[in-house]
């Protein structure tokens, strides 16, 4: 049934392979990315920390169990190889051993279950939150709004932004979220686990950042074509920086100086963009405030609110940078004591990534996959799920960029 040489060859190969497997495992454990922005093992707030406190020992237990199994199998495979021994004892089983080896994993799992339930209950607590921020997912960007409240240090008027949520450091924040179309999921790994954003329901997630910084996240429930391009960040800053941010967001609208490129951009914006993009304070020819798609949306249009676009540094669902590569690290890699100040500087004309912005204005659907052909969207009442191709000339793009640069 077998030849002696093949048996020993296989035995040698078995041993070598087991060593290789162990080496790979070791490399895997050791070789991880440093500072991956969405690393789930680098908690930066109490919610994520509670999860880490639970999962760390569980992983160790799982690792130990795994190594024991590998060791036993490895031993058995070496020790009981066919070396010419007689047909072995035809043992059918040892019930005592089997029962014992069933009870042992059960005990381990009970040991895991109890802190699991405890942590679950602790994580569910949201009564201590002092700041409410609403989040609404839609294909393929996040709308963030701050309702009028006493929390968050007092919010006197509704603040609407998109993609980047700014919070004060050390404050427990209640994120209340829903969706306008399909199921999305809101996830900032370093601050907490994810929570699905389900249309028709409001779900909550508690986050709190211990240190100032920029915390990255992504939509983590498949939501269609550009699911991969639906990202967001949470920026935590010191309380006084946060006050400055809020004040800036609520500043009244100022029109551009007449006869400037930006003024032409404003007119173009009104005619081409305001159907979907809201800019608070923009008025039409009769002096009435322009509200994009009032029938559908409360604060923003069918697209992100651009009132203070240049106070953020990403756009189009946080898929693209508004900062050029030279300016980017100044903000994103800033140490925690200065990151708030750097962020508040916003996007200056010198730092604007006009290549990205212009590409977007020139042909948005080519840059980010979207259903942007109006003729195909009859089932959705013509709703564009994405920015269509507008056919703008380069001059028009210049005007818009100039106008947008002033949205700070």
């Amino acid at each position, binding site marked *: 049934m077998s030849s002696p040489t093949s048996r020993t060859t296989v035995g040698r190969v078995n041993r070598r392979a087991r060593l290789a497997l162990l080496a790979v495992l070791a490399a895997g454990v050791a070789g991880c990315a440093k500072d991956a922005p969405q690393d789930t093992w680098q908690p930066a707030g109490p919610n994520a920390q509670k999860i880490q406190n639970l999962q760390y020992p569980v992983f160790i237990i799982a690792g130990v169990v795994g190594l024991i199994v590998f060791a036993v199998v490895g031993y058995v495979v070496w020790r009981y190889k066919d070396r010419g021994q007689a047909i072995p004892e035809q043992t*059918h089983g040892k019930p005592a051993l089997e029962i014992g080896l069933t009870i042992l994993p059960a005990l381990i799992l009970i040991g895991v279950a109890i802190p699991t339930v405890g942590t679950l209950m602790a994580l569910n607590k949201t009564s201590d939150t002092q700041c409410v921020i609403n989040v609404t997912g839609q294909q393929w960007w996040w709308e963030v709004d701050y309702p009028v409240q006493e929390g968050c240090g007092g919010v006197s008027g509704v603040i609407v932004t998109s993609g980047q949520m700014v919070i004060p450091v050390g404050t427990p924040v209640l994120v209340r979220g829903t969706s306008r179309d399909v199921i999305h999921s809101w996830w900032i790994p370093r601050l907490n686990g994810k929570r699905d954003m389900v249309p028709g329901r409001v779900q909550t997630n508690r986050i709190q950042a211990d240190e100032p910084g920029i915390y990255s996240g992504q939509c983590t429930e498949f939501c269609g074509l550009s699911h991969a391009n639906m990202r967001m960040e949470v920026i935590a800053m010191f309380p006084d920086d946060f006050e400055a941010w809020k004040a800036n967001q609520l500043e009244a609208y100022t029109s551009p100086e007449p006869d400037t490129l930006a003024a032409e951009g404003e007119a173009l914006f009104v005619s081409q963009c305001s159907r979907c993009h809201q800019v608070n304070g923009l008025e039409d020819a009769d002096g009435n405030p322009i509200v994009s798609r009032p029938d559908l949306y409360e604060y923003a249009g069918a697209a992100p609110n651009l009132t203070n676009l240049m106070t953020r540094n990403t756009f189009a669902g946080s898929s693209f940078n508004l900062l050029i590569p030279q300016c980017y690290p100044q903000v994103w890699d800033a140490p925690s004591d200065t990151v708030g100040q750097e962020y508040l500087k916003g996007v200056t004309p010198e730092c604007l990534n006009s290549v990205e912005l212009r590409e977007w204005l020139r042909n948005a659907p080519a840059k980010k996959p979207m259903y942007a052909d109006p003729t195909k969207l009859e089932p959705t009442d013509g709703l564009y799920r994405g920015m269509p191709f507008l056919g703008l000339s380069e001059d028009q793009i210049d005007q818009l960029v100039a106008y947008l640069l002033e949205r700070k």
Partner: protein
Amino acid sequence: MSDTTITDPGVSEPDPDDGATLDEATDGTTLVDEVIPTATDGSRSDDGLDHLGLAHHTSTGLSNTKLGMWLFLGSECLMFGGLIATYMLYRNRQGDAIGPDQLWDIPFTSASSFCLLMSSLTMVLAVSAAKRHDDRNTRLWLITTASLGGLFVAGQVYEFTTFYREGLGYTTSLFGSSFYTLTGFHGVHVSVGIMMLMALMFMLSRNKVAGDKAETVEMIGLYWHFVDIVWIIIFTLVYLIPA
């Protein structure tokens, strides 16, 4: 045990079969003869009818077709369970459109339910007649069953057209979609049952039913009773319990 070539070596625990001792089994004929007849020369042969799966040849005592029907009905429980759960979730979600309270005509539905219930009785009578090899009465009761079933379906059709006229369409609301889907699936099952009954009558009359005729009637009876029981559940949950 010593003069056979078959032994059970070295068990360290009691033999894990269901009590038949090895002695009985090695004798060869004890277990076997209950199931399959032996030929006169002592060799075992199947009598050519194994594949029909008749009851006395099988390990459970149920024929293959009857066991198969029970299993199929088990899976149907899950299917109707899913549909009922969907309905129960959506029964109150009619929005501004018409709702259950304004629609139900309980006396009418009770009458058609009664027809279906009686059809189960006539089905039992048909099975009983088949077991007695009373062909004429078997046919009679089968026709009655199919007719009562047909009356039920007719009642459903009348009801649905009335509801539709009163404003409950399939696409009107969640309540409408889930109501029509649930009762529609049930109605299709009843209709298929009626077709099976008529086909059975036809095949019985032309002597085209293989194997045990009474058992085939009984198997179709099982399906019919199941469809009736599902209706009782639907009638209770959908019509009788107020939304």
